[in-house]
């Protein structure tokens, strides 16, 4: 059942992004001036004005791209954006709603992470450098997708940054009440990034079946569907 069918209280408030208009403000005049330059072979106006218009075109083009990069940085936080890499991500995004045991699904279904940016919440790390590191990783993901330089099952590179978990959990009573969390050796091993939270004491972040990409994830389902069809006959 979808959220709308349950009633208005089950529909999250619309998260409208208007920043794209800011991108168009310098992009549209830049395109118009570039079209004129392309057709006429020079910018309109005499030497002085033409030079000024050329400089304005240069600045508009650059500024539009800078705003476009900011727009991309914001849009790239959304779960829809993460799920748009068709080969690898849809099974992971789908498992957030359908799985019951993985840590990511538990957080998502309990509303412990942002509904619109659940991937970014846990994978961006903590603080401003966490954001920088997330963007750096994103560039790496795009490059590996472009060059098809990745393998299944997908694996997290290096230990998971426990600061992302600690950011919410460290101050909670439930976290403090767990004896293991106060064990000095265990705590030091976690601080040294020798062990993480997920997959060690707590469930794996994502179900194994979701880490094999679309092709592998759909194969068993197709087989199941075929079996079901045979049984019904």
């Amino acid at each position, binding site marked *: 059942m979808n959220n709308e069918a349950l009633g208005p209280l089950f529909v999250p408030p619309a998260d409208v992004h208007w920043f794209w208009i800011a991108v168009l403000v310098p992009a549209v005049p830049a395109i118009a001036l570039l079209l004129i330059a*392309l057709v006429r072979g020079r910018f309109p106006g005499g030497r002085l004005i*033409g030079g000024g218009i050329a400089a304005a075109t240069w600045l508009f*083009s650059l500024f*539009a791209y800078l705003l476009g990069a900011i*727009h991309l940085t914001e849009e790239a936080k959304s779960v829809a954006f993460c799920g748009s890499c068709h080969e690898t991500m849809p099974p992971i995004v789908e498992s957030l709603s359908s799985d019951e045991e993985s840590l990511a699904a538990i957080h998502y279904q309990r509303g412990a992470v942002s509904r619109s940016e659940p991937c970014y919440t846990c994978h961006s790390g903590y603080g401003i450098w966490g954001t920088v590191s997330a963007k750096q990783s994103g*560039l790496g993901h795009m490059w590996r997708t472009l060059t098809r330089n990745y393998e299944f099952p997908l694996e997290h590179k290096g230990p998971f940054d426990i600061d992302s978990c600690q950011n919410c959990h460290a101050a909670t009573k439930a976290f403090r009440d767990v004896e293991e969390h106060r064990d000095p050796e265990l705590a030091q091993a976690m601080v040294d990034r020798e062990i993480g939270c997920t997959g060690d004491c707590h469930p794996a972040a994502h179900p194994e079946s979701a880490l094999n990409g679309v092709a592998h994830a759909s194969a068993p389902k197709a087989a199941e569907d075929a079996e079901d069809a045979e049984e019904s006959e």
Partner: protein
Amino acid sequence: MIRLAALILLAAQLILLLLVYEPSGRTATLFTFVGTPLLGLGLILLALAAFRERRRKPRDAG
């Protein structure tokens, strides 16, 4: 050279419009690895063309 610079910059701006229209992994990759190098090349060419134009005109006038 101005035409070439304008053509390259237009291509870069069209990629930007694509990204604005549909932000996705595909358009983001296009923006980052095709659009941005095109923008850099177009801006350099445009600056060179404007510089050449400025140098040529006084000589033509004299």
